[in-house]
């Protein structure tokens, strides 16, 4: 029944309110990184943490250990037995995209999100997709879109579509267990059918 489905398209603002997880908060993740240099995409798992509003920590636990802290426009990468590396977030717009969308998302700050992205919603309140299109030309050159997939008040996947190369998918929260159980990230990073 297309008419009923259309009537049920979720309001992004309502969705965002439901997704809000004020700091401090933490969630498990699984990321898949593809590269032409690799035989098969790399699967990385760990935890995303927000100890405070302005900091996002990405802790990789497998297949190796590594902690990345995003704060103050910088990414600080710490590896076991190696000195810290620092990068400007400006040089990694993909990452800046994750941080800003993720941050605004967890704050439930629809306005902040809409300042940076054109936000649109698809699906139903039960199974939804939020599409974020960068407004800033510099970011748009590198990132075509960030798509968020979720069910009810739970974010399932952040899929970043770079201008060149493969989609980078980050599976979050309860969906991580589905990946561990054998589900492909692709299947988790798409709009689910059904009510």
């Amino acid at each position, binding site marked *: 029944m297309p008419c009923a489905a259309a009537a049920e398209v979720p309001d992004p603002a309502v969705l965002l309110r439901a997704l809000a997880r004020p700091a401090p908060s933490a969630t498990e993740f699984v990321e898949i*990184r593809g590269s032409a240099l690799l035989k098969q995409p790399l699967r990385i798992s760990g935890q995303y943490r927000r100890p405070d509003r302005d900091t996002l920590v990405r802790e990789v636990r497998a297949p190796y250990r590594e902690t990345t802290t995003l704060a103050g426009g910088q990414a600080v990468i710490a590896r076991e037995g190696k000195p810290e590396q620092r990068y400007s977030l400006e040089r990694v717009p993909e*990452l800046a995209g994750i941080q800003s969308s993720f941050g605004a998302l967890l704050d439930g700050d629809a306005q902040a999100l809409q300042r940076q992205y054109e936000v649109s919603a698809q699906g139903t309140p039960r199974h939804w997709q939020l599409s974020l299109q960068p407004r800033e030309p510099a970011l748009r050159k590198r990132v075509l879109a960030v798509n968020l997939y979720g069910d009810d008040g739970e974010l399932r996947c952040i899929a970043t579509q770079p201008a060149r190369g493969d989609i980078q998918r980050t599976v979050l929260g309860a969906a991580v267990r589905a990946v561990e159980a054998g589900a492909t990230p692709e299947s988790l990073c798409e709009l689910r059918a059904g009510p």
Partner: protein
Amino acid sequence: MIRISASHWRLLAALAWLAVLAVAGWIASERLQVSGDLRKFMPDARTPAQRLLMDELGEGPGSRLLMIALSGAAPDELARQSRELRARLGERSDLALVANGEQAGLEAIPERLRPYRYLLGNVDPQAFAAPALREALQARVQDLGSPAGALIEPLLPSDPTLQTLQVAQALQPARAPQRIDDVWFDRSGRQALLLVQTRAAGFDPTGQATALAAIEQAFAAVSAGSGSRMEISGPGAFSVKIGARTSREAGTIGTIDTVGMVILLLLAYRSWRAPILGFLPLATAGMAGLLAVVALFDGVHGITLAFGFTLIGVVQDYPIHFLSHQRPGVSAWRNVRALWPTLGTGVASTCIAYLTFLFSGVEGLKQLSVFTIAALATAALATRYVLPALVEPAIRDFADSRALDRLWRGIERLPRPRLSLLVLAVLCVLAIWRAPGAFWQNDLSRLTPVDPADLLRDAQLRSELGAPDVRYVLTVRGRDAEQVLRRTETLRGWLDAEVAAGALQDYDFAARYLPSMALQRQRQALLPAPEPLRGALQEALVDSPFRADAFAPFLADMEAARRAPPLRPQDLAGSPLATAVDGLLLRSDDHATALVSLSGLRDPAAFAAASQARGAALLDLKQASESLVAAYRLRLLVALAVAALLLVATVGLALRSRRRMLRVLLPMLLTTLLVLAALRLAGIELNLFHLIGLILSAGLGLDYGLFFEHAGDGREDQLRTLHGLIVCSLMTVLVFALLALSSIPVLRAIGSTVALGVVCNFVLALLVSRHHSGGRHAWA
């Protein structure tokens, strides 16, 4: 038709003269090349340090650096401004280097030189064996999986060990400031920092001013509306700031002086034409001096000009003597003829004395000699042959003044000191000899002191940026670039140890950017041949997530590096590396000098000894420039001694009497002793500007002595002379006393010396040289 009276004609002629001077001044200012180049001012270099300072460096790599701090806006905005500023300034040819931390990345090594990364940076031969490669590949997997993966990915196929990044990092200063948004920031993260190296030497005020103006302009465009501020620090910025302050203060003092002189002349001569007539010979003299120097020399040194204009202050007196002797019933021409012997004796003997500067062997002193002689002679001739044509017939005789008459009678009752003067002279000599403190001040920079707050700021920025020391630089000399590069490479271990021990904060040299060819060949020999490398890579790739063919470009690059001819300095042309190398590697046809810039040197003496033992020489550029100042002064003093003898001889010849000669010269000699003693007792270290002040005051003293001694036979003539001398000395005291109050040491040195000298000269000439009532004269 309007009838123009003779009086109007004279006025018109005077104004026409002024107009000609203005035009000549404009032409001179167009043609005049005022340089701040120390070489024009200083004697030839003798020691290696002096030669390096003069011939090659200018003033050390540190002195050409300008440090820039941007503040007052959000960090991302400041970073944007920093990037744009670098982009704009980077295009300028007068700036050798504009750095803000951005070029830290791969841009430092241009694409065509990429394979050379294995020769430019240290390579561990084990790095290309299977175990090390395997470890490197594991780390690359993590890199790909990291948020920065996208950055690293393009580099991996040709460089799985990330040698490029290692080399780029090694090219960074060891103590580079932190980076926010890719550009340098201070520790607090509130100020974006940039480093600019000018091509112009630190002592070249014009070049520095141009560079500063360009930076200010670029910043204005970049920062418009953001509310951010820019601070520029460094030797060049200071010299421009102080130069502006000096000229501003000199301008203010000059204006007050001019007003004071006009009022004084108006009061003294009760004629509104007097200031014009009084001004003409001086202006003409200055112009003649300038034109002579412009015609005979390539460029004029700023200090020479300052000295020159100070020294010709004496010509201000010529028209005053003439005007004071004007009286009804005597034509201006007859008046000037009567004055000429006295005036002429003064001018001729001074000019002959200044001739000695021509043979001093110092360019700056030669210019000074030409300038003053041309100026003095022109002023004297203008007073003798032109002024009488312009002056109005006198309506007043200053000899009629009751006040002057009373004053002169009082003066005549004064005793003529003899023994007391001898005692005074002995006391002065004792004071000069025994007063505590250094006699000479050699540090030119002390004459133009930098605001302590600015110095503090400079030190802060210098430490934040790890900028090199301005004063010390280590040098290694050799036959050619290769030899000095090799020699500096052998110093690396020792320098690193010094840094580790805290004796040194950091150092930099050309071999860090461009290893010697010998070292490059050494590294080449360690690089693996294609087959073994292919084997090791294959082994490392077993069970790796990477594809087997992912690193084919790596094998190609390695082979290119193994076979490439070693890089030479000239191969770097056009790359950012070239700037770094050229600043630290001075090459000429028959030799080369490598500079090791130092920052935060703790114990220069110990370091100098240690470096000497290693075949390097620590140069103290401050000491070198001071020794040059001392050499300049010595030449000046020798020239002065000869000049003094010539002066005595000329005056003696003109006066043809030892007694008269003594009476004329004694006040001037005593004054010199008195002023020297006063300065010494006040704890003032003497500099070149005091010396110039003393020379001017001696020249004035000679004229006072001559005029007092030859005041004319009649009482009227004596009164007119007294009038003239009072106006002269009042005017000179007015001008120089104001300079003495200046906040700028240069102006203060000249001002205090001359003001004190004029008072002493006047009083002593009055006591010693004044005309004998009953005496007879050879001329009148």
